[in-house]
C-alpha cells in the first residue's frame, strides 16, 4: 500500500507556555520548542505498521520552509521511506482550503492508496483531511482510532464517537483518514536515528511544480484570515492559593471537607 502522511511542525504545548507579544497580535515565537504535531506522529506510526504487515511505502509530506525539514527527518528516522517538503513563499497566508489545495496538487503527482492526516493541529481546525478528501473526491473518515486492511480495495476502520464508543465503518480505497491520538504507541526516535537519515535527500515541490497559482492558495486566495490573538477574560477565574505548600494543603483540605469531599 502506498501511503502519504501529511504532517506539520508545531510549538510543543507540553514544553511551552504560549504567551502573546507586547503588541498582542501574535504569540511570542522566539523561545518556543517545536515538534511534530502529535496526532501526525500517530498517523506516521500507523502507516509504518500497515506497511510492515502488507508492504508498500510511507511518504511524509509537509508544507513549510527549511525549518520544517526537521519534522521530515524525525519521521524518516521512525522509518518513513520518503520525506517531501512543499515550499514556496506564495503559500504563506493560506487558509485551510489553500493548504488542502496545495496537498491535493502534490498527491495527484503520485499514486497513493491511502492519505493520512492528524485529526487536528495547534490551531484546532480539524479541517484539512476533510477538505482534501472532498477536493480529491475520495471517501473520508475523521477521528479514526483503528485501521484494519480488509483487502486491496477496502479498510475496516473505527471512529471515536461520544462516550468512548466506537463507530465501525468500511471504507473504499483510495481514501483520506484523519487519525486520532492513542490509535497506537508511536516508536521512540533518538538523536542517533535522526543523524542516520541526515543526508537522505528530501524532495521539494514549489508552486510552479504543482501548478498552483495565486488564485487558489496563499494570502490572496484566503477567505479566512486570523486578525489577532488575545487572552480571554472568562469569568472570574480561579482563586489562586498562595503561601507555603503546607498552608495551601491545609486550605485545600478545609475546602474539600466543606464541600462534602471528606468525612
Amino acid at each position, binding site marked *: 500500500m502506498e501511503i502519504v502522511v501529511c504532517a506539520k511542525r508545531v510549538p510543543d504545548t507540553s514544553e511551552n507556555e504560549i504567551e502573546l507579544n507586547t503588541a498582542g497580535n501574535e*504569540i511570542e515565537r522566539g523561545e518556543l520548542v517545536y515538534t511534530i504535531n502529535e496526532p501526525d506522529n500517530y498517523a506516521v506510526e500507523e502507516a509504518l505498521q500497515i506497511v510492515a504487515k502488507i508492504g508498500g511505502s510511507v511518504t511524509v509530506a509537509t508544507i513549510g520552509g527549511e525549518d520544517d525539514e526537521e519534522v521530515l527527518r524525525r519521521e524518516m528516522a521512525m522509518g518513513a521511506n520518503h520525506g517531501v517538503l512543499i515550499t514556496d513563499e506564495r503559500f504563506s497566508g493560506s487558509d485551510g*482550503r489553500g493548504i488542502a489545495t496545495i496537498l491535493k496538487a502534490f498527491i495527484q503527482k503520485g499514486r497513493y492508496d491511502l492519505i493520512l492526516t492528524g485529526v487536528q493541529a495547534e*490551531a484546532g481546525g480539524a479541517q484539512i483531511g476533510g477538505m482534501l478528501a472532498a477536493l480529491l473526491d475520495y471517501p473520508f473518515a475523521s*477521528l479514526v482510532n483503528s485501521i484494519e486492511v480488509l483487502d486491496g480495495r477496502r479498510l475496516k476502520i473505527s471512529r471515536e464517537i461520544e462516550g468512548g*464508543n466506537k463507530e465501525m465503518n468500511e471504507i473504499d480505497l483510495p481514501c483520506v483518514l484523519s487519525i486520532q491520538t492513542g490509535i497506537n504507541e508511536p516508536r521512540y526516535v533518538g538523536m542517533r536515528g535522526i543523524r542516520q537519515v541526515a543526508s537522505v535527500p528530501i524532495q521539494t515541490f514549489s508552486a510552479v511544480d504543482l501548478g498552483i497559482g495565486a488564485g487558489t492558495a496563499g494570502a490572496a486566495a484566503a477567505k479566512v484570515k*486570523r*486578525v489577532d490573538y488575545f487572552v480571554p477574560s472568562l469569568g472570574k477565574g480561579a482563586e*489562586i492559593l498562595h503561601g507555603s505548600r503546607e498552608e495551601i494543603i491545609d486550605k485545600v483540605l478545609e475546602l474539600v471537607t466543606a464541600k*462534602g469531599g471528606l468525612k
Partner: protein
Amino acid sequence: MARIFAYIAHKDGVASDAAFELAAVARKIDPAAAPTAILTGWGPNLDAACKNLGASYAETWKIANEVLSYPNAELVRKALQKVLPSNSIVLVAHEHFGIDLAPGLSVKMGSAFVSDVLDIAGVEGTGIKLVRQEFGGQVSAHVQCDVSSGAVFTIRPGAFRATESTAGRSLVVDKSGEVGSLAAGRRYLETVVAEAGDVDITKYNVLVSIGRGIQEKDNVAIALELADAMGAAVSCSRPVVDAKWMEKSRQVGSSGKTVKPKVYLACGISGAFQHLAGIKGNPFLIAINKNPKAPIFQVADVGIVDDILEFLPELTNKVREMRSTPAK
C-alpha cells in the same frame, strides 16, 4: 445577509440540545434572521425530531431517506448539496459528526470554513469576525471570514446560550424529493459500546483526575495513593489514556465518561474543552498545575500553581494524618 441554515443531529426522536445553541448563533450573526433547521434521517424518529424544535427556527427542512437512517457524513453532505441554496451560511455543532461533515461540505459548496467557533465578534457587510481558540485554549484568536460565497461554521457545544422558544411551531418542509439516490464510499457497520472498566468513576463524590503532568506511568501510583486516602477514585484526561497509563474507562471528557462528583481535583490537566465537557453538575473544582497560564485556571474554583509530583504526596500524607486522628 445570506440565508442561515443549521444542521441538527437527533437521536431517538429528539433533536440535539445544540439545535437551540445554533439558533442563538444564527441570531447573533443576524438579529433579523429567520433561520432554517435541516434534519436528515428516516422513519418516525425523524418526524418526531422535526416537530420538537418549537419556534426556534422559521422553517424545518426534513430530508427522509432510508440510507440516512444512520448519519453517514458523506451521504448527508451529498443530500445537503442538493438542497442548500448557493451562498448559504451553514451552522453545524463541533462534535464527531460535524468534524466528519463540515470541512468537505464547505469545499463542495465553494464556501469559506471556520471550525470550533466560540463567539461572533462582529458582522460588517459580507465579513464576519469570529472568536476561536488555539493551542488547546491557551490563547484566543479573532478570525475574519469572507462569507460572500457562503460559509460553513462548526460551533463549539456549550459556547452559546441556547435560545429555546417553545411557543409556536416551526413549519416543516419535506425536501426528500429533491435529494434522489445517494451512495458513499464509506459504509456504517455498527457501534461498539465502550467496555466498562474496573472502577466506575461516575459513582464517586471525589475524583483525583490526572493529566499529562503526571509525566510517566510509574507516577500514577501517586494519584492512586491520594485517592485511596480520600476514599476517592482516580480519573484522567486524554493524554494519559493515549500513553496507555490508564484504561479508557477512566477518561473524563466528550470521548470518555461524563462525571458529576462533588469535588474534582484536576492534577496536571491543562483543561481542553473536550475534557471539561465531561465534568457536569458544577463540582468544586480545584486545579493544580505548574503552568500558571493553563486554561484550567479559567474555570477552576481554586487554583494551585505547583508541581503535582511534589504536591500530591504531601497532600496524601496530610489526609492520612487527618483521618487517623479522631475528630474532636
